[in-house]
């Protein structure tokens, strides 16, 4: 086969015909790993091109099948039928599972998947396993993702006839920084270097910026500014972004995201069709898995059909005497998923509010992702944004990966003689980052929707007299108390000179660079006292546990409180 031709060569070792890779910087490829589907695109010198696999597909299913010792992913593999993915041997939805602990509701919702997701509900990583030769073989979302990325990389190397190392990956807005480290880990396992992890709607925003620039070759830098609202809903996540675009510069004004997507629609409908589904399938026996697969495929088909039809008949024999026969109409589907749609609505409203904009201020409303075909989703978006028409210049399934490929080219330092790459995304932080202070309050230092790169700082002080040490617990999120936010990491400041409480000044500074790397600096404001620098403070596992253990051991002994900003004198 043609694939045999590819070998991973080192940078110095070029095969003669491809001089481009050595004389020019390597162009990073864009990868969109979706919960359900994935795609790869690259700047080919004049435009963005989606890479096709050996079966000539641009969109590939995101799954890995474990058979004996050799796993096969959806890049090269072709399923004889959808049921093959549901035999228990295939792991999918890894994007929903990655970097989550077993107390997470999303992990619990994944228990109805055909492969094994087991939880102990104590805040550690869940047990995930694929059925191989009637045995549950354990794996991790990172491993599954890495296997999948290795296949993608191999495919891209064959197509591009060069080694592929640098990538721009799109990620959901709601991903925590811990989840980002898991994605990076998976990429490293697959031998890929992450140039950027780009929130999906911001990748779409970059594509939009390019389209706007191409359509108006006017004076750049000034020109008319256009506000776009981007709504992206796939199988696993829903994201909203608002961007201000002019002269090829896309500035992200606000981001909002949630773990809600097509998978939730599917599960809600499955539970609606078969209310005792969880009991029937909880044992994960071979027969149960098969039945679950039948139900899943039938439900998925029904949802797809309801995008164009008003009603759809469902006839399903689950084999054990359970038969389903009914006509499902669109209204019923919408009623069952009312909660999901309400969440989508709330996200758009919040994003507009955060951007300090009214629906009327938005010039273009862009809707992308697999769920963009669902009439109710379109209704929600058009009604909140008060318009009849949505932006039509993009393929909803390809927009994100195209944007990622553009960012890949821009971030690799590639320039285009026709100015098609005179683009820039000015990113913003999707979640606030701060520390625990004033008891168990979360005190943000870098607020949500702050433009990056950024550096912010705040002064804290001690809570006890003669307190010589202070504990800095770094959290991410937008809830008021730390328990509801995500613990990123912690460290201790020592050497605080003995003084009455409230006197020592502890400076905590946070810095996010253009590659979205977070650093936390903290120290006592005294000449000659060294500061602590902690890069991307990361707890590896057991997030809830570490915080509990710290609290148990130290109580409030090492706490800090905020210093009120002096407004007088």
């Amino acid at each position, binding site marked *: 086969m043609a694939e045999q031709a590819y070998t991973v060569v080192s940078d110095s070792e070029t095969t003669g015909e491809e001089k481009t890779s050595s004389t020019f910087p390597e162009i990073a490829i864009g990868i969109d790993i979706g919960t359900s589907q994935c795609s790869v695109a690259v700047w080919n010198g004049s435009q963005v091109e989606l890479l096709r696999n050996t079966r000539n597909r641009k969109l590939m299913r995101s799954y890995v099948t474990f058979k004996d010792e050799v796993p096969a*992913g959806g890049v090269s593999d072709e399923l004889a039928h959808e049921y093959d993915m549901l035999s228990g041997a295939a792991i999918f939805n890894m994007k929903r599972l990655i970097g989550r602990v077993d107390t997470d509701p999303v992990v619990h919702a994944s228990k109805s998947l055909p492969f094994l997701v087991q939880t102990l509900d104590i805040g550690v990583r869940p047990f995930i396993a694929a059925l191989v030769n009637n045995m549950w073989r354990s794996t991790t979302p990172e491993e599954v993702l890495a296997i999948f990325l290795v296949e993608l990389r191999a495919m891209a190397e064959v197509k591009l006839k060069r080694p592929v190392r640098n990538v721009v990956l799109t990620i959901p807005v709601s991903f925590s920084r811990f989840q980002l480290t898991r994605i990076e880990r998976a990429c490293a396992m697959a031998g890929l270097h992450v140039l950027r992890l780009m929130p999906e709607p911001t990748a779409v925003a970059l594509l939009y910026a390019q389209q706007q620039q191409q359509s108006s070759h006017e004076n750049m830098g000034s020109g008319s500014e256009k506000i776009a609202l981007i709504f992206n809903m796939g199988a696993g996540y829903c994201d909203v972004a608002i961007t201000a675009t002019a002269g090829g510069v896309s500035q992200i004004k606000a981001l909002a995201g949630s773990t809600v997507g097509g998978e939730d629609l599917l599960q809600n409908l499955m539970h609606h069709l078969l209310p005792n589904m969880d009991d029937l399938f909880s044992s994960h026996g071979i027969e149960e898995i098969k039945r679950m697969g039948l139900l899943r495929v039938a439900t998925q088909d029904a949802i797809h059909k309801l995008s164009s039809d008003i009603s759809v008949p469902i006839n399903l024999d689950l084999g054990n005497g359970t038969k389903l026969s009914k006509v499902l109409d669109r209204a019923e589907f919408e009623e069952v998923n009312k909660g999901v749609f309400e969440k989508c609505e709330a996200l758009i409203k919040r994003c507009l509010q955060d951007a300090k904009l009214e629906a009327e201020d938005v010039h273009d409303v862009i809707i992308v992702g697999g769920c963009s075909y669902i009439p109710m989703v379109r209704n929600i978006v058009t009604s909140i944004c008060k318009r009849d028409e949505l932006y039509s210049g993009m393929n909803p399934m390809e927009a994100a990966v195209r944007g990622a490929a553009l960012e890949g080219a821009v*971030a690799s330092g590639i320039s285009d003689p026709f100015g098609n790459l005179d683009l*820039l995304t000015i990113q913003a932080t999707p979640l606030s980052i701060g520390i625990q202070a004033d008891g168990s309050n979360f005190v943000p230092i870098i607020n949500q929707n702050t433009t990056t*790169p950024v550096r912010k*700082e705040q002064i804290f002080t001690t809570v006890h007299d003669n307190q010589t040490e202070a504990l800095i617990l770094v959290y991410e999120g937008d809830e008021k108390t730390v328990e509801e936010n995500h613990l990123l990491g912690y460290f201790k400041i020592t050497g605080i000179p003995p003084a009455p409480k409230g006197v020592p000044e502890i400076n905590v500074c946070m*810095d996010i*660079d253009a*590659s979205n790397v977070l650093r936390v600096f903290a120290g006592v404001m005294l000449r000659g006292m060294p500061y602590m620098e902690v890069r991307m403070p990361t707890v590896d596992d057991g997030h809830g546990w570490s915080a509990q253990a710290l609290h148990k051991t130290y109580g409030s002994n090492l706490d800090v409180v905020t210093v009120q900003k002096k*407004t007088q004198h």
Partner: protein
Amino acid sequence: MASSSSSSFLLSTSITSSKLSSASPPPCSVTFHSRPFSVSAAYTTADRATTSSTSTTSTIGTPTSLYEVLGIQTGANFHEIKSAYRKLARVLHPDVVKLQQNSSAEEFIRVQSAYATLSDPEKRANYDRKLFGSRIARPVVSSAGGRSHYPVRRRWETDQCW
């Protein structure tokens, strides 16, 4: 097939990054650029740049007002502010200037901070009051008697924590 051979390489045993380190960079080196950075210098840049011309932190001539940071007239309208910001972003954003990472992030942050104040009507009004309060008010104050400008300027400085 090439793809399956590389995947079996990954899966045949448990995956450890050390096993793969010859073929791939270790996870840490992937994104953690190290660039020299000093907290004490950073934490005062914005304030000093705008309140006192004797700042020592900046490498280039230090602008004395946020308007100068963006290179615009003090009476610039919203549109001009935005367009100036965008023009500077195209030059100073670290994605554009990769060779001098160190300075570009600093400068972009300063431009961003100026823009954040001037593009918000309320913050701009506050800023203008303090900026012009201390400049234009000079003759008024001197005629009114020996009232110091410092309280005004100090208050602004502490407000502008970024």
